[in-house]
């Protein structure tokens, strides 16, 4: 597990692009601060897959109430949340 902020952002970005591709979308231009659900690249089911991947990738089980825009809404916020939870932020 690489807890470098840029590495986390890169991994999240790659996962979003992969999930979007499964839906026939190209999310290559997604910005670090774009609100992922609002981009239209991924639907709710794909976001759920993203969350499950995120929990497993960073060995970080989430409470349901933690799954919100503030914590996980963008690539930047997902990276920040990992670092905060791991005490590395």
């Amino acid at each position, binding site marked *: 597990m690489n807890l470098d902020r840029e590495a986390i952002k890169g991994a999240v970005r790659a996962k979003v692009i992969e999930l979007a591709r499964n839906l026939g979308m190209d999310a290559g231009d997604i910005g670090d601060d774009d609100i*992922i*659900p609002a981009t239209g690249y991924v*639907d*709710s*089911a794909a*976001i*759920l*897959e993203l*969350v*499950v991947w995120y929990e*497993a990738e960073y060995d970080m089980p989430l409470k*349901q*109430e933690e*799954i*919100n*825009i*503030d914590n*996980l*809404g963008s690539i930047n916020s997902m990276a920040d949340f990992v670092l905060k939870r791991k005490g590395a932020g």
Partner: protein
Amino acid sequence: MAFALHAPRVNNNDDIVQVISFRVGVGDFVKRGDVVIDVETDKAIVEVEAERDGYVLKLMCEVDDKVPVGAILLWQGDSADEAVPEAPVAAPAEGGSGIARPTAKARALLKELGLDAAAVPASGERLSLADVEAYMTAHGIRRRDHTPAVSVPAQESLPDVPGELADLNAEERGMLITVSWHRDHAAATYLEVEYDPKAWEDHAAAYASANKLMLSPLLPLLAYRLVQLVKASPRLNATVVNGKRFQYRPVNLGFTVQAGETLYLTVVRDADALETGKFIEALGEVQRHAIQRKLSRDETTGATIAFSSMARWNVSRHIPILPPYCSLMIAHAAPKGSGRAVLGASYDHRVLSGFDVARLLMDLAKPPV
């Protein structure tokens, strides 16, 4: 209070499972979903998962033991030093050792559950059906007679093309049970209404914004509205068993989740008792468990109504198969760019009329005020 983990039913034809190995020992703390025991039937080896968090208090069988489906495999407790209910492992002779002799009905239920009469306290001289039912309630034991048999023609011939036979996996077996019940028991039919999705989309967007949700709450809110409408009209929450109407008390919502190549019918139990936010959380939880392949038994059984959406796949219509003992399954579709959406319903005409279902669909097409 100590709680039991029971031998699972792996398939309809096996009433006995053989213990292959234990993954845990007395004193271990296990979390819900942890694999604790491996059991084998004639067809497969199955990992048995803990249904709750807790310490292992006592193992009730040994490796190589053959135990009836429903029998207690082990006891757990919230602390490591809880007392385990008295339950002799070896079945004593009926009527001996001061054990209350079960009535015929109690004996039949004990046999069905694979329970030992000595484990169940009697309220009188005889062990009654009520005693066994009280024991079931206290220990979270459910009857397993809601799993219908799969009828496969005994003499079905193989196709006249080279190939190999293979056993179905657990999910495929479950689907076979579902389609067989739909075909053989339900008087299944279908109807649908079209609706303008804008009001629902606006409602969901406002809810998502107010609650800062990651996932669109549109489908959960539709499902919750369904639960509320069914709660207000209990006759929609029923099935037919042995020629009689069976009225469900709780509304247990089934919700389809596609996880990879597997389609699960996840279940939110007692959905009618939940507030909107709690329902959305509970549904999110079972969806995550489905994708993680960590669904507990309670999260995959007991649906009394169900909801399925294929809006993601841009289909214009799908006609769901009714799960066993479920008389109503809503089908949602919303072809992209069409400006229209469809709410359909497969329903069991033995229980519901077209009028019942059409009225429900028209109500469901509008978000709550």
